[in-house]
């Protein structure tokens, strides 16, 4: 595995550092986990394309030496779809926030999953809108506080992995910043998977989520990740009540199904053959 120094040298735009994230924000570590996964897969830098959404999480690519397009809020997967379909030889990874992917970008999310297009969607779930200053997001737990829910959210949150499964994603996994080595593995599997891969990382926003919910220390937030985590297998034995407040981590789904870009290529080939005959 790459040391940080090696990683920075090989993959980072070091003159852009230090990054702009707040002290203790999860984004930096997740960004590094992604890079290390890419490195372990031996993917050429020039053939990896990142699409970033808008949000604090949308700054990941700004420090990295890949082709990166930072699109409009919520549309990362639509951009990614165009890139991948036109140039299938690129490995495409979209990085989004819980608001970016789960709120405004929800439609592209479920359709990318449905099509089973060979992309990796990485959602950094800090359960809040970080960039705009702490509004509730579709993953803010019921009763938790945010700047638009000062007395506690009255909305039920998404379980983004269940949503991905419902939409038909063929690789679905959840990790946390605390379980950083597992996260790296999950990202590796996700990128290697042929089809639509979804990885949700439970992350920490000490500045807003933490502040509004009385747990401002980054380390405390990581400890909470550790203590709340149960593995997918362990979770199968638990009742919904027991799972209340838990983070289920690991791989939920990993299966093969017709992949959109290949199916489309097959269509082209069919015509090509017809023409040749």
């Amino acid at each position, binding site marked *: *595995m790459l*040391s*940080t*120094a*090696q*990683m*920075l040298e090989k993959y*980072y735009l070091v003159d852009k*550092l*230090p*990054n702009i*994230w*707040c*002290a*203790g*924000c*999860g*984004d*930096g*570590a997740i960004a*590094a*986990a992604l890079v*290390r996964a890419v490195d372990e897969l031996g993917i050429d830098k020039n053939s990896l394309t990142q699409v970033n959404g808008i949000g604090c999480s949308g700054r990941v690519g700004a420090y990295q030496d890949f082709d990166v397009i930072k699109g409009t809020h919520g549309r990362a997967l639509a951009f990614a779809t165009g890139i991948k379909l036109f140039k299938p030889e690129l490995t495409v990874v979209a990085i989004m926030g819980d608001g970016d992917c789960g709120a405004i970008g929800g439609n592209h999310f479920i359709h990318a999953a449905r099509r089973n297009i060979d992309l990796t969607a990485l959602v950094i779930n800090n359960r809040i809108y970080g960039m705009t200053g702490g509004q509730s997001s579709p993953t803010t737990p019921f009763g938790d506080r945010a700047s638009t829910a000062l007395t506690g959210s009255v909305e039920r949150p998404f379980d983004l992995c269940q949503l991905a499964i419902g939409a038909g994603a063929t690789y679905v996994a959840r990790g946390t*910043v605390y379980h*950083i*080595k597992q996260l*790296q593995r999950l990202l590796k599997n996700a990128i290697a998977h042929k089809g639509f891969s979804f990885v949700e990382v439970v992350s920490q926003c*000490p500045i807003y989520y933490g502040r509004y919910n009385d747990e401002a*220390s*980054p*380390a405390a937030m*990581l*400890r909470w990740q550790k203590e709340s985590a149960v593995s997918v297998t362990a979770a199968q034995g638990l009742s919904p009540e027991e799972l209340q407040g838990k983070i289920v981590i690991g791989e939920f789904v990993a299966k093969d199904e017709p992949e959109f870009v290949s199916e489309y290529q097959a269509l082209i080939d069919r015509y090509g053959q017809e023409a040749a005959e």
Partner: protein
Amino acid sequence: MPDSVVTRKGQRLRILLTPRYCKGCGICVELCPAKVFGSEPATGKAYLAAVERCVDCGLCELWCPDYAISLEREANL
């Protein structure tokens, strides 16, 4: 203060801190299982307090959100 330690696997492990990147979030300080890091009172930035305690779990390097920690291993000790 030494900045390296010999690991159980017999490698020499150097912990490289880049204070310019460190934002003093306290993650390494609080979560290193071996309490290797301290926190400067004025700035909150991390410093190496007791490298010799390091058990080479590798986590501080992966956790640090600011790329301020690099673990350098010398293979052929």
